[in-house]
């Protein structure tokens, strides 16, 4: 995973996938280019207009709970966001993130505020605004291989099966 840097966009606890993008919008289209315009529309109507490529999502506990719908990951990627930091994730969101090449980082996000500049190197988070380092949980090998490939699609372009786990 190459290092990345960006601006923190901060949300609270228990952000469910319908808050990320509503199932109603999903009925209209599955295209991330379309859905990115409706990111967080129910809970932060200003978000979609102000999100910039390279921004990093930051959340509290249980990010991505609720429906397993994958557009809640692809719409985030569609907006140019490549990592999500949270105190914890719902497992389906975590899976979908890995499988699409969106880096999920589990770390203590409580001291990160909206607009902070963050640098990410693997699971290590450095808050340039506060000078604080946060150790995130490193990803197990197979997940890292999938995220680094850019998700399951590029992963399977060069393989017919999962690499065996050792």
């Amino acid at each position, binding site marked *: 995973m190459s290092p990345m840097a960006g601006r923190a966009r901060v949300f609270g606890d228990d952000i469910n996938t319908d808050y990320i993008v509503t199932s109603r919008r999903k009925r209209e289209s599955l295209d991330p280019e379309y859905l990115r315009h409706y990111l967080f529309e129910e809970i932060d109507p200003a978000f979609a207009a102000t999100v910039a490529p390279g921004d990093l999502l930051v959340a509290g506990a249980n990010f991505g709970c609720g429906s397993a719908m*994958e557009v809640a990951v692809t719409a985030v990627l569609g907006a140019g966001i490549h990592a999500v930091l949270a105190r914890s994730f719902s497992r389906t969101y975590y899976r979908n993130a890995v499988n699409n090449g969106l880096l999920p980082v589990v770390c203590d996000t409580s001291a990160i505020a909206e607009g902070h500049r963050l640098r990410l190197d693997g699971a290590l988070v450095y808050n340039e605004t506060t000078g604080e380092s946060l150790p995130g949980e490193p990803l197990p090998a197979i997940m890292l291989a999938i995220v680094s490939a850019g998700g399951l699609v590029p992963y399977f*372009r060069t393989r017919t099966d999962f690499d065996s*786990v050792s």
Partner: protein
Amino acid sequence: MAGKTITEQILSGKSGRNAKAGDVVVCTVDSAMGTDGSVPMALDYFQAMGGTRVSDPSRLVFALDHYAPPPTRATALLHQRMRDFARDQGVALWDTGEGIGHQLMVESGRAWPGALVVGADSHAVTYGALNCFATGIGSSDLAAIMKCGRIWLRVPESIRVELTGVLPNGVYAKDIALALARELGADGAAYQAIEFTGSGLDSLELEDRLVLSNLSVEMGAKNGVFPFDARTAGWLRGRTRNSYSPVSSGADARYARHVHIALDSLVPLVALPHRVDRVTTLEDAAATPVHMVYLGTCTGGRVRDFHQALAVLHAGGGPAPGVQLVVTPASRTELETLARDGSLAEFIAMGAVIGTPGCGSCCGTCGTIPGDGVNVISTANRNFKGRMGNSHAAIYLASPAACAAAAVRGAIADPREVTP
């Protein structure tokens, strides 16, 4: 096998490794289901992966349930695409009107003890009631399964939930699930498995267990599994063609946490808007006005649920004026049973709107959508803001009997106290 939870044992068998909580393993999938909410994207992934033929079509099934019937041209096109793909690849498909994929999985024997079963929808955990490892996955996972038949999984730790005693009159499986949600919180079982156990299971029908497994994901659980007993065997008889070997936990299996629920001590409960773990007693919420009552979903859309609701509706002389009653059976088989035994005619006579078997209003993708300021009480599993298609409505979750009591009174009420 000593020392292992049910989940660890199943995942060991399916990965060919000695799997312990915390390991990441690659497992062979026995049975998989995708819905119209997840398959269209899975087909995109599959094609982008260079997939041409599904590795083992006999293990896969598609359900057209979330847009049943399709309310727009765009969703009708999704259905057409799924039908075409299924026909070309020899994949089974449950068409519009046959019911909710999860219900059909357990009705048709596509989930069985000891199996690893996945569904590209979070409520695939429902099948855990049948002593299998069942979990919800994404569209990309489903595409990988179509390609190679396998999946990566982190082996979860398990929470052991011991149930003892017998439910009092007027208290149902839904109340056990809400009590557990109150105890654990909406993320209290995140990344973990819930393993149900205890003498209290003896009195729980398979339908009751389906409710508990179904709601385990609302506490963040990866799967919610039951041991095997005569009720499981009875349910599977004539349904599954697969031979199976039941799995029970090892005597010294390790659990992350122990929770005990004494069924005798439970009272009727309700989850308040907009969180499943904002649980209070029906008594405390009593008199909250209710405008729409929804009976259906993969949690509360089975014959038994409708019978429980009807008993209360009868006792109370039918729904109060101005209350909209919506009835959506979980499958065509359930609808047929209700038609045969006269229940359907009674619902119709009470002015109920009868929905196509499927997800209906549950997630706002089709069916009746509540208006602004409307309080809905529902037999479903989720009450997030906007869940039923309108973020200006509020959703309460309760047992079928409690929903029926609310219909009678036009306000939240205890089903035991409903009289004409």
